[in-house]
């Protein structure tokens, strides 16, 4: 056991920090903050930021060089993430692609698919959204009814029909990945296939949906006789569930939510507490004292998540896989995120709900609204608790 980073890792951190300090859009540089990525203008501004990172080699540090990465290791990726959040850099508009689809492409994609999709994903040229849920298939994902049938016109192509919903970034994305039923006779989890679909394909209709913050963070996507070539099937026909669970594992586990988001927010929470405890012109000086225990809880939980991630990363580097334990991660980070942000709002009191001059939620409120989604997406926390109970503790299925 040695919890120090190596000199090479320290140098990597210094290099990342220097580049981010010089390049992260900010008010002081007159380049930021960027408008919300769930607006048309903000989406484009965030894509431009992805491009800038890609050109400097920081977009996807852990990917092989041939796809635009640096071939960096797992800990280097975690270090980069720590620096990314420390620098207050923009939300990754490409996150569904680079953190969720990409690990699945690396595992199941053909060489042609990897060459076709990964570099464009890393540069922000092509932003991906996710097509899992349907109106009648949420927690019960295997109940999906959107279907794919062989094309009557082109031998090995498929025709998609149906509806996907709650597709994050769906309003503006160029591509969608999702599950469709290729064998209507098969039982639930069988007979599903994983497709990659251009959002501008004829027959695709997007209906943006406004989220809690009023912006169109997700969308419904309708498929009406959408023809898709066989080359856009990821993994084998009929094995979509297995492929999708790899993506879900990334979403719950290591890749989507790096600890930096929580440790950085927790550090800001301590500073908010410090100012409130010192008075800070606040009309309720007792408030900080009443929040003190939750502030400490939030800080410790964020730190526990970081340490647990280092623990898991060490195991992964020595060849272990991440199985159903990923569901424990998802439970913990989503609850931690809520604790950090709800404690901040408690410190702010009645000021917490006030919008900024542009009518946008300021950072703590914005973070709180985002954190509220955590226990719902990537499989609700109720589903995660079932997974933990059944597959980690070995309790019988209901």
């Amino acid at each position, binding site marked *: *056991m*040695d*919890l*120090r*980073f*190596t000199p090479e*890792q320290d140098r990597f951190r210094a290099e990342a920090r220097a580049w981010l300090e010089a390049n992260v859009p900010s008010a002081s540089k007159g380049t930021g903050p960027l408008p919300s990525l769930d607006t048309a203008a903000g989406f484009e501004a965030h894509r431009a930021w992805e491009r800038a990172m890609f050109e400097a080699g920081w977009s996807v540090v852990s990917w092989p060089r041939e796809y635009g990465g640096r071939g960096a290791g797992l*800990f280097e990726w975690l270090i980069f993430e720590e620096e990314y959040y420390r620098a207050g850099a923009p939300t990754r508009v490409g996150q569904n692609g680079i953190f969720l689809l990409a690990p699945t492409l690396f595992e199941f994609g053909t060489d042609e698919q990897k060459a076709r999709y990964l570099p464009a994903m890393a540069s922000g040229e092509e932003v991906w959204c996710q097509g899992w849920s349907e109106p009648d298939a949420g927690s019960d994902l295997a109940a999906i009814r959107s279907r794919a049938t062989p094309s009557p016109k082109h031998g090995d192509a498929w025709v998609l029909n149906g509806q996907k919903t709650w597709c994050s970034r769906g309003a503006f994305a160029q591509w969608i990945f999702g599950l469709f039923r290729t064998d209507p006779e098969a039982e639930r989890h069988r007979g599903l296939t994983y497709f990659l679909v251009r959002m501008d394909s004829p027959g695709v209709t997007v209906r943006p949906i406004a989220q809690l913050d009023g912006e169109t963070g997700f969308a419904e996507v309708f498929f009406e006789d959408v023809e898709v070539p066989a080359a856009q099937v990821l993994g084998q026909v009929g094995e979509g569930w297995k492929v999708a669970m790899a993506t879900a594992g990334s979403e719950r586990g290591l890749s989507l939510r790096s600890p930096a988001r929580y440790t950085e927010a927790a550090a800001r929470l*301590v*500073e908010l*507490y*410090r100012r409130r*405890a010192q008075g800070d012109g606040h009309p309720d000086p007792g408030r900080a004292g009443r929040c*003190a*225990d939750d*502030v*400490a*809880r939030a*800080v*410790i*939980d964020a*730190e*526990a*998540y970081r*340490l*647990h991630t*280092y*623990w898991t*990363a*060490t*195991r992964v580097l*020595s060849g272990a896989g991440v199985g159903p*334990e990923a569901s*424990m991660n998802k*439970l*913990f980070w989503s609850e931690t995120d809520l604790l950090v942000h709800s404690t901040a709002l408690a410190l702010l009191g009645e000021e917490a709900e006030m919008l900024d001059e542009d009518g946008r939620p300021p950072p703590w409120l914005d973070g709180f609204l985002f954190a509220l989604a955590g226990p719902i997406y990537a499989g609700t926390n*109720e589903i*995660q*608790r*079932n997974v*933990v*109970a*059944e597959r*980690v*503790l*070995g*309790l*019988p*299925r*209901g």
Partner: protein
Amino acid sequence: MRFGFDEHQLEFRAQLRAFAEKQCTPADLRDAWASPLGWSRTRFEALAEMGVVGLTVPEEYGGMGLGLVDLVGLLEEAGRAGLPEPLVETTALGVPVLAQAPGAQGDVLRARWLGAVASGTAAIAVGTSSMPAVPGAEGADLLLLEGGGELHAVPAAAVALTPRPVLDGARRLAGVDWEPSPATLVVSGFEAEGVLRALEERAAMGTGAVLVGVADRLVSMAAHYAGERLQFGRPIGSFQAVKHQLADALVRVEFARPVVYRAAWSLSVGDPNARLHASMAKAMASEAATVAARAALQVHGAIGYTWEHDLHLWMKRAWALAAAWGDAAAHRARVLEILLAHPA
């Protein structure tokens, strides 16, 4: 960065688990409850024979000369087994104090006690003036006692004990009457402050490690029971209301564990944040054990509320240790205090 144990550490831990499965069964624990001390000298000597008791004793005194990272997984196993012997007090707290005691008095203490600890013939108890009573005082051969900012090493013959009956029959407490004297003084003044702070930090980490093991055992017991107990014609573990309680408890245990391990590492290398890390560890571990005890009792229902069922042997340990050396809230307060002492 490598956050994991090496092969030797894992092997040692597996040996202790195997030992405990044979030598520290629930029936053995009940024997300990019924015994005069609440723990067994025979088992303590067997643990010493394995190298566990003398793990931190320098090799020149017959110990293993190892550190807290080597010890932390063993303490977790001790908690898992409900082991009543005073391992935290002797191996994590007492030995390092003796090993570093200054001057000629230090040499005398080392010569007198370290070999005896390594062979399992001496056990140590630790008491500070903020404690209402001292755990493991009965049966301890040497007591390290704080009073008036001084730390004294007092042989059992020189103290008068008043047993204070407690809920956990395998972790007894006693009031200790003693007189400080130049002959017993280990450190005083500024030096004593440092020694006592380090001792508290090791206690938070070590007790935290035991608590993680206790919590893990409680969740396992409840999961096992939930898989067997039938109601409405099926195992109660198939109901989500039961599943979710146990999943939440397991998550608390799972995330407390690396925080405790990190504290052991920070203490062993003298990391400047070791005190912060030790408090984080105890806060997480106390909370995990309290949550696990509550969930485990609820899942067991009335049978878990009985004397006859084994659950209470671990539940009472969880409660006792959750409060020992500062409860979760006290350590959270310390964490915030330390963070605020650093400038933004």
